[in-house]
């Protein structure tokens, strides 16, 4: 991302163990405090504080003109946010669950993504759509989709997803400051993951991918919900595994990722979305184009199967596991090197 960060006016926040959920809440509160054009609205975000409590307490602090519940209609939420942004506000809106954002798909792809281009930059839409996404929490159907590829395939949108509490704070602050529309994907199963971190968004560290763990033999490329699984696999592997957390899915940070793959010569993309035409396909294709002569093996993918998201009692078979990642690493034609 090339989002310009604003100066933090408050005193430096204290480093303490926070959950991703709390970090997101803080980011929203700080953004509401720092910029009175920022609004938070959606279904159940005000009084209830959101079904995941990410917006807890915001309505009480900032009042009903800044944080409010809407009628239950996702196209309505996105469509009215577009109008509000046209009229100078900066809406941060919530889609309650991944699959519940689909009614808003036309507003997102036909207008949110295109109005800036349609008007040669006259209309800017600084809107953030927060979408809790992905599975791993025992959710029922329509509550566990990994819908990132729909958005990354749409020009005009930025798509980001944090893997840690610290990134959640920084990414959300920068997304709110961004002049472009941002699809902000929150990995549900990492909401309660804790990190001892200073919540800060002034650095430039979230502008692209980050190397979470260094290694020399193989690069694991992942993001969001599977970051924890990938790190665990790297820990258990009997080879030296580098782990990259993409954070920004669109635009893609070619520089960081390609440099790593050129170093290690092997790469595996890990995500829980289905494999066919999934985000990993683009990553593998790009890296093949950019790093072909450095590669010792084809780039492999560990992804969800090409099936509708399974019922909760079967989801463990679908989600990329540590074992599946380790098995895949083993298939990287080590015999040739």
């Amino acid at each position, binding site marked *: 991302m090339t989002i310009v960060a604003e100066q933090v006016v408050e005193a430096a926040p204290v480093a303490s163990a926070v959950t991703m959920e709390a970090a997101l809440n803080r980011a929203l509160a700080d953004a509401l405090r720092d910029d009175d054009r920022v609004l938070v609205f959606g279904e159940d975000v005000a009084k209830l504080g959101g079904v995941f409590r990410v917006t807890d307490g915001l309505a009480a602090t900032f009042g009903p*003109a800044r944080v409010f519940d*809407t*009628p239950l209609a996702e196209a309505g939420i996105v469509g009215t946010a577009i*109008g509000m942004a046209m009229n100078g506000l900066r809406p941060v809106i919530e889609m309650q669950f991944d699959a519940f954002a689909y009614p808003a798909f036309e507003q997102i792809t036909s207008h949110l993504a295109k109005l800036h281009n*349609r008007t040669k930059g006259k209309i800017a839409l600084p809107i953030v759509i927060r979408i809790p996404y992905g599975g791993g929490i025992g959710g029922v159907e329509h509550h566990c989709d990994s819908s990132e590829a729909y958005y990354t395939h749409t020009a005009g949108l930025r798509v980001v997803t944090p893997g840690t509490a610290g990134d959640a704070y920084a990414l959300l602050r920068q997304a709110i400051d961004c002049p472009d529309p941002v699809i902000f994907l929150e990995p549900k199963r990492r909401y309660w993951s804790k990190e001892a971190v200073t919540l800060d968004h002034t650095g430039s560290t979230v502008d692209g991918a980050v190397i979470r763990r260094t290694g020399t033999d193989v690069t694991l490329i992942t993001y969001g919900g599977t970051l924890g699984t990938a790190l665990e696999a790297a820990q258990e592997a009997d080879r030296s595994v580098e782990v990259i957390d993409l954070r920004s899915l669109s635009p*893609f940070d070619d520089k960081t990722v390609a440099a790593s793959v050129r170093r290690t010569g092997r790469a595996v993309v890990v995500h829980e979305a289905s494999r066919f035409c999934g985000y990993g396909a683009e990553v593998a294709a790009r890296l093949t184009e950019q790093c072909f002569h450095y590669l010792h093996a084809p780039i492999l993918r560990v992804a969800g199967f090409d099936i509708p998201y399974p019922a909760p009692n079967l989801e463990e078979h679908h989600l990329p596991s540590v074992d599946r990642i380790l098995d895949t690493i083993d298939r990287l034609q080590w015999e040739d090197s």
Partner: protein
Amino acid sequence: MLANLHVDVRGHRPAELAGIDDRRIAGDHALALQAFHSGITTGTGDVYALGQRPHRQPPLDLQLRQQPQINVVESDRLSSRTGRRVSFGSHNSRAYEPQFVFVYACLPTLDVLRSHAQTGGYSSFRRSERLVTTSLLPTESPVALIDADGQPVPDALWSMPSDEVLVALHRAIVLARRFDAQATALTKQGRLAVYPSARGQEASEIGAALALRPQDWLFPTYRDSMAVVARGVDPVEVLTLLLRGDWHCGYDPYEHLVAPQCTPLATNTLHAVGVGHAATLKGEDTVALVMLGDGATSEGDTHEALNFAGVWKAPVVFFVQNNGYAISVPLAQQTAAPSLAAKGIGYGVPAMLIDGNDPAAVYRAVSVAIARAAAGDGPTLIEAVTYRIEAHTNADDATRYRPAEEVRQWLARDPLTRLTRYLTDRGLLDADRIAALDAEAEAEAAALRQRMNVDAVLDPADLFRYVYAEQTPELRAQQQELAEESR
């Protein structure tokens, strides 16, 4: 009973004031009483009222001890004609004169009453919640002020716009019709990729556009080029970009507060609600008027927009031009509702059904709706009944789905003919003036032709410039790729 109106009755419930059973008051009767109640008394027994439309309820028996003097307050200008009896505009109410006085008030009436109450220093107008239901309903047939023959409609719901407004409407309609014909001609010559004509809909296009205040937003569709041009956007900018195919939208939406012409149906209704609600949140006096067609009312976004606007009381006017067909599908296959305006009640949005070929009615209805919105009373749904004389676009063949006789019937209801006749009858227009106007329209069309014959220089690099606020490295690379290709 109504003699009580001699005194200041503010602070009392209308039922108390009328001395009748509260439960018997319903609908417009109660509205009328509420109107009396809200400071419409002048201290001399006068009753100010405007807008008379009996609803479905039978008249309420309110015997007067004495016949009050009635002032009819005329529209937003608040001129009054003392001594004239309230005119009910309906056959069944006349029977009750002079023994009874009923003031049938529908929503626009209340707006006028409110504005009168405000300018007259009266207490603010209140509407009790239980009265809302009937006040949301549109009339059963379209309201007109000037009929198809150019004659003023007797006992019309609203007063006629001023002469100045009518003359301005006439001029803009003449220019719009010529512009539309020129655009159609340019399409036939291959200078435009496509042009959806609005011929026959000029009263709706121009009446709505001219009723907007400078600070109001217009959200047009692809068929509303007339309204966009009437709002001040350069016709060349309208035609070259979307319709010639040079770019999707070329004008600056903020210059005249005109959103890009929307091609997907009804999606812009939500944008209008957003702009309007943002204005409310920011404390701005801005109303958003969104145009849509009969077909678009079937889209989910229309439903969501009306619902959001109703809940938020957003300052929005939903202006539906019911031109009879969604490309080829007639209205009967689009909805089972008694009218498109009737849909408003489901969202708590008051509605008006108007003759969309009567420029005076369109102008007045939109003005009333804008005044309501600006006063903080929320959205209005207007259905303007009109007809698309041309095919859907130049690529369409309308003879496949509608009979020529139907088109002829609608040509007889032409908006320009009727307004011309009305103004001519009143000495506001003569042959010389008409000839001068035609010459002006002809000159504008010629200038447009000439400017349209100049091909724009298109820069393919523009394809990559506006996708994001700041170009991404990927798009920079792709722009370079294309540049090398064209070398």
